[in-house]
C-alpha cells in the first residue's frame, strides 16, 4: 500500500501537474459529451458491442486470425508476457533490426517489451512525446492516456536541457515539442521495426484502429517495413461498422477532445511504399510496399477474467481514462500512487487483479472510495466501484483475522473470513453507533480524550485530527415513537428510513425531514431499521453488506406493501437501495425497494410537482445559499431536485462542481488518507470561498460531506432539509 508518506510526497512533487491536467480533461469531457445528442445511446451501443464481443471472443479470435492471414499478415496469440516477448524478439531478430520505434501502447508496457528488446541490444525508442519524456527520465507512466501527466513544462525543460545540452536552453512548450519532433523524426525514419498497440481490431476485415493526436503511430507504421501490433485479446470487435460509437466516444471521454487528430484504420500490410529516406533519386512511387505484419494478441490472464463473473466487465474497458480523470483521489495523487504495475486509476484494480494478481491490486485498491463519480463517465458503463469492492473483498479474504479484543468487542463480525481490524471497525459502525447513543454523553466524552484518540489511532488507524461524530442520547426513532402524526388526512404515506447517522448523530435533520413531509401532507413513520450495509460494503465486506441488505428489505418490505413510500435522507444509503442492492439481493426484493425509494428532496420535489404548496414550507426571499451535492446523489442524477426545491422556496443557489468532497465516509477518518482527503477537500473549500460564495451559508446532502465541510470551513454546514422545516 502506498504509505501516508509516499502519498504526501507524490502530492508535493506531482500533485499540482496531475490536478491541473486531469481536471482539464474532466471538464473537457463534460463539455464535449454535452454536444452529443445521442450520448447515452452511443454509450449503450458501445457497451453492447463489447459485451457481445467478449461473449464471442474465442470465435472472433479464430475469425480474425483467418482474415489477417488471408491479408498476408501473421497472428500470434501469446499466453503471457514472456511468450509475447519471445515472439517479438524473434521478429526483430529476423529483421536484423538495430532500432525499433514504438507508438505508445499500454499492452507493451504490460509485457515490458522494451526491456526484453534492449537486453538483445536493440535500440527501442518511444515516439509518443510524453512517453519519450518518461523514457528519458526513466519513469513509469502515471496515466493511461497521458503518460507524463505528472510532469510540468518546467521539469521537462530541465530534463531536456540536462540530457541533450542544446545550444539555446529549451523553455516553451513550442520549443520542447519542436525539439522532440526533430530528434524523434530522425530516429523514426532510421528504424526497421515499428511497434504499435491497437485500440480496436475488427475481426471481419482485420482492420485495426489506432487513436493518436501526434501522428506518431502513423509514422511508426509508414516509415518502417515491419509492423508489430501488440494488443490484449479483448480488443477484438466483430466489424468495422462497430467502430462507430467508439470513434465518437473515446477522445471525448479521455481528454475532452471531440475526436483525436488521427484515427488510423489500418488493414495491414498497408500499400504505402517503403522508402529509403536518404534517397534523392528514386520517386516515391517506385519503391515497393514489401511489408511484414505481425499481430501479437496477449492473453496474460484475460481469458480467465472472461470466466470470472465479477472481473469480466473489466474487459469491456477501452482505456479512455475517463474514470481516472473524474476521480477526486486520482486528481490529487495520479497513477503513481493510484495504480499498479501497468494500469492506473479506478479500473486498474480490475486489470491488475486479472493480469498481475490480487496482491498487486491491493497496493492501491483502498484509494477507491466508492464515490461512483466514474460510473457515468465510463463510455462502456463499467461499474468500476463494484469491481473495486469485489477485489477488496477478495483481499480481505486472503488475510488472517486479527481478532483484537477492542474491535471484537465493539463489532461482532458476521463475516468470519477476516477483514482487517480497521475495515471491520468501519464496516460494523452500526454497533458503534448504537453503543454510542446508549451511553451518550459519556461515550462522546470518552471518545474525545487524548488517551482514547491515541488508542484509536494506533489500533484502528483513525486520524486524531478528525472530529468524531457526537452521538445523541435520544435517537430519531425514539423521538418519532414518542409523538403522534400531525397529518389528519394524508395525501401520501411514507416511511422515513432512519439511517445510522440521522438516527444517532444528525438527529436534527431527521426531525426536520419528518416535519417537512408532514407539512406537505405526508403521514410519516420512522421504524427502527438496520443500517443499509453501506459501511461494510465500503470496506469490501460483501457478505456483511448482503446480510444488512436482506434485513433492510425485510424490515421495509411490509411498509412498502402497505402502500408507503420509502424516503431516504442519506444519499449514500439511497444509492445502496437503488444501485448496489441489485448486486446483493434477489431481483424481486431489489425492484421493490428501488422503485419505491426516494431521496428526500427528490420526494419533496415530486410532492410540489403534484400540487403540494410550497407555502406550507419555510421559504426565503432571494436568500443566498451555497449547496454541495453528494457524489452518489449526483451519479444518480438527483442533484437537480434539491436545487429546484431550494429555488422554489426562494433561495438563490450556487452549487459546487468538484467531483467529491474527499471524505467519502470512513476514508477521510483513516490516518493513512487524512492528508489526501484534505487535499481533495481543498478544491471544495476553494469553491466555497470564491467571490460571491464566501458569505453564503452552506448546505450539503451527505453525512460525510457535512463532516468534511465542517472540517474545511468556519461556516458550519447543514442539511438543506433543515432550511425547509417550519
Amino acid at each position, binding site marked *: 500500500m502506498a504509505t501516508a508518506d509516499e502519498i504526501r510526497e507524490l502530492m508535493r512533487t506531482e500533485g499540482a501537474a496531475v490536478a491541473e*491536467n486531469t481536471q482539464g480533461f474532466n471538464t473537457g469531457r463534460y463539455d464535449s459529451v454535452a454536444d452529443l445528442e445521442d450520448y447515452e445511446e452511443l454509450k449503450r451501443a458501445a457497451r453492447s458491442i463489447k459485451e457481445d464481443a467478449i461473449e464471442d471472443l474465442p470465435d472472433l479470435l479464430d475469425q480474425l486470425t483467418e482474415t489477417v492471414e488471408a491479408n498476408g499478415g501473421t497472428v500470434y496469440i501469446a499466453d503471457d508476457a514472456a511468450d509475447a516477448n519471445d515472439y517479438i524478439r524473434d521478429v526483430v531478430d529476423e529483421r536484423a533490426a538495430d532500432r525499433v520505434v514504438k507508438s505508445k501502447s499500454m499492452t507493451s508496457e504490460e509485457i515490458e517489451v522494451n526491456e526484453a528488446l534492449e537486453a538483445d541490444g536493440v535500440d527501442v525508442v518511444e515516439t509518443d*512525446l*510524453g512517453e519519450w519524456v518518461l523514457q528519458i527520465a526513466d519513469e513509469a507512466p502515471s496515466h493511461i492516456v*497521458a503518460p*507524463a501527466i505528472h*510532469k*510540468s*513544462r518546467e521539469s*521537462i525543460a530541465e530534463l531536456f536541457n540536462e540530457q541533450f545540452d542544446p545550444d539555446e536552453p529549451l523553455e*516553451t*512548450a*513550442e520549443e*520542447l*515539442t*519542436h525539439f*522532440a*519532433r526533430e530528434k524523434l523524426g530522425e530516429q*523514426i525514419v532510421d528504424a526497421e521495426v515499428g511497434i504499435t498497440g491497437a485500440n480496436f481490431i*475488427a475481426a*471481419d*476485415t*482485420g*482492420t485495426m484502429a489506432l487513436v493518436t*493526436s*501526434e*501522428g*506518431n503511430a*502513423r*509514422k511508426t507504421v*509508414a516509415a518502417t517495413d515491419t509492423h508489430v501490433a501488440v494488443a490484449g485479446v479483448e480488443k477484438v470487435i466483430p466489424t*468495422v*461498422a462497430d*467502430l*462507430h460509437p467508439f*470513434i*465518437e466516444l473515446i477522445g471525448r471521454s479521455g481528454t475532452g477532445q471531440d*475526436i*483525436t*487528430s*488521427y*484515427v*488510423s*484504420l*489500418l*488493414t495491414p500490410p*498497408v*500499400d*504505402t*511504399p517503403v*522508402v*529509403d529516406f*536518404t534517397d*534523392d*533519386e*528514386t*520517386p*516515391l*512511387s517506385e*519503391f515497393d*510496399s514489401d511489408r511484414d505484419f505481425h499481430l501479437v494478441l496477449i492473453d496474460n490472464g484475460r481469458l480467465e477474467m472472461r470466466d470470472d463473473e465479477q472481473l469480466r466487465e473489466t474487459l469491456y474497458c477501452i482505456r479512455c481514462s475517463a474514470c481516472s480523470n473524474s476521480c477526486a483521489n486520482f486528481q490529487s495523487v495520479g497513477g503513481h500512487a493510484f495504480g499498479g504495475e501497468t494500469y492506473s486509476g479506478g479500473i486498474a484494480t480490475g486489470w491488475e487483479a486479472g493480469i498481475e494478481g490480487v496482491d498487486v491490486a491491493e497496493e492501491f485498491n483502498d484509494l477507491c472510495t466508492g464515490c461512483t463519480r466514474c460510473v457515468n463517465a465510463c463510455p462502456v458503463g463499467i461499474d468500476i466501484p463494484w469491481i473495486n469492492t469485489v477485489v477488496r473483498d477478495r483481499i480481505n479474504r486472503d488475510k488472517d483475522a486479527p481478532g483484537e479484543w477492542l474491535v471484537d468487542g465493539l463489532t461482532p463480525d458476521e463475516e468470519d473470513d477476516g477483514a482487517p481490524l480497521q475495515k471491520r471497525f468501519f464496516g460494523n459502525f452500526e454497533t458503534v453507533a448504537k453503543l454510542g447513543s446508549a451511553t451518550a454523553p459519556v461515550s462522546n466524552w470518552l471518545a474525545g480524550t487524548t488517551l482514547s484518540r491515541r488508542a484509536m489511532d494506533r489500533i484502528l488507524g483513525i486520524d486524531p485530527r478528525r472530529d468524531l461524530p457526537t452521538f445523541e442520547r435520544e435517537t430519531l426513532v425514539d423521538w418519532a415513537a414518542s409523538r403522534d402524526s400531525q397529518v389528519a388526512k394524508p395525501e401520501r404515506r411514507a416511511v422515513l428510513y432512519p439511517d445510522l447517522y440521522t438516527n444517532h448523530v444528525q438527529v436534527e435533520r431527521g426531525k426536520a425531514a419528518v416535519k417537512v413531509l408532514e407539512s406537505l401532507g405526508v403521514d410519516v413513520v420512522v421504524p427502527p431499521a438496520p443500517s443499509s450495509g453501506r459501511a461494510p460494503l465500503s470496506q469490501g465486506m460483501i457478505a456483511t453488506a448482503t446480510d444488512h441488505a436482506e434485513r433492510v428489505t425485510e424490515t421495509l418490505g411490509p411498509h412498502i406493501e402497505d402502500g408507503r413510500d420509502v424516503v431516504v435522507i442519506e444519499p449514500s444509503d439511497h444509492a445502496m437501495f437503488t444501485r448496489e442492492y441489485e448486486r446483493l439481493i434477489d431481483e424481486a426484493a431489489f425492484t421493490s425497494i428501488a422503485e419505491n425509494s426516494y431521496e428526500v428532496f427528490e420526494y419533496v420535489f415530486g410532492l410540489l410537482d403534484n400540487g403540494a404548496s410550497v407555502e406550507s414550507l419555510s421559504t426565503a426571499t432571494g436568500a443566498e445559499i451555497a449547496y454541495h451535492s453528494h457524489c452518489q446523489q449526483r451519479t444518480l442524477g438527483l442533484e437537480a431536485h434539491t436545487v429546484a426545491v431550494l429555488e422554489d422556496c426562494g433561495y438563490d443557489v450556487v452549487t459546487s462542481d468538484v467531483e467529491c468532497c474527499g471524505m467519502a465516509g470512513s476514508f477521510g477518518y483513516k490516518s493513512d488518507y487524512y492528508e489526501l482527503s484534505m487535499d481533495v477537500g481543498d478544491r471544495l473549500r476553494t469553491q466555497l470561498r470564491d467571490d460571491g460564495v464566501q458569505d453564503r451559508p452552506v448546505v450539503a446532502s451527505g453525512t460525510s460531506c457535512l463532516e468534511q465541510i465542517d472540517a474545511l470551513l468556519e461556516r458550519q454546514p447543514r442539511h438543506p432539509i433543515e432550511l425547509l422545516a417550519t
Partner: protein
Amino acid sequence: MESKRASFEGALEALGVTVASTTESELEAAVTEAVTEPAVGVAPDEAVADEAFSLTETPVTVDPTPVALREATTGVTEAELGIGDYGSLVLSMTDQASELVSLFVERHVAILYEEDIQPDMDAAVAELDERFNETGGSAIIATGPSATADMGALVKGAHGPREVHVIIVEEGV
C-alpha cells in the same frame, strides 16, 4: 448538401483549418495559391473535366524523391471523404505514397470534392465498412493538425503537419 457543407466548414474553422472553394477549372490556381514552396504532391485520382488532373501546372512536385519529400514544406493530396459534423478528412493510403506526403510535411493541403462530404461519422464509417469489406484497404480519419499537450501546453505540429488547408472542389461547374 448545403447544410452538410456548412457544418463541415464550420467544424474546420473551429479546428483552425483554413478552407478555400473552387471549381474544377480553377483548381490549379487554387492549389498554386494554397501551397508554400517547396511543395510535393500526389495527383487526385479523379478526372477533372474529362482529363486527369495532374498538378503539372502548379509549383507542386508530383511523385518526389524521399529527400525532396523531407525537404518540402507543403504536401498536397486528395481526401477521400469529408465528415460534416467533425470536420474530419478521410485520407487513403495509396501506392503513390499519399500517406507519406500528407504526414511528413508542415502544411497539408487536401483536395476534397464537395460530393464526398458525408454528413456525419456514422455515415462515413458505414462507407468505410463497405469499402474495407470489398477491397480490404486502409484509411486515416484526420481531424485538424497534429497536436500534443505532452509538453505542458497544447502545441500544434507534433509529428505531423501543423497546418491543414482544405480545397473544396464544387461540382458541375
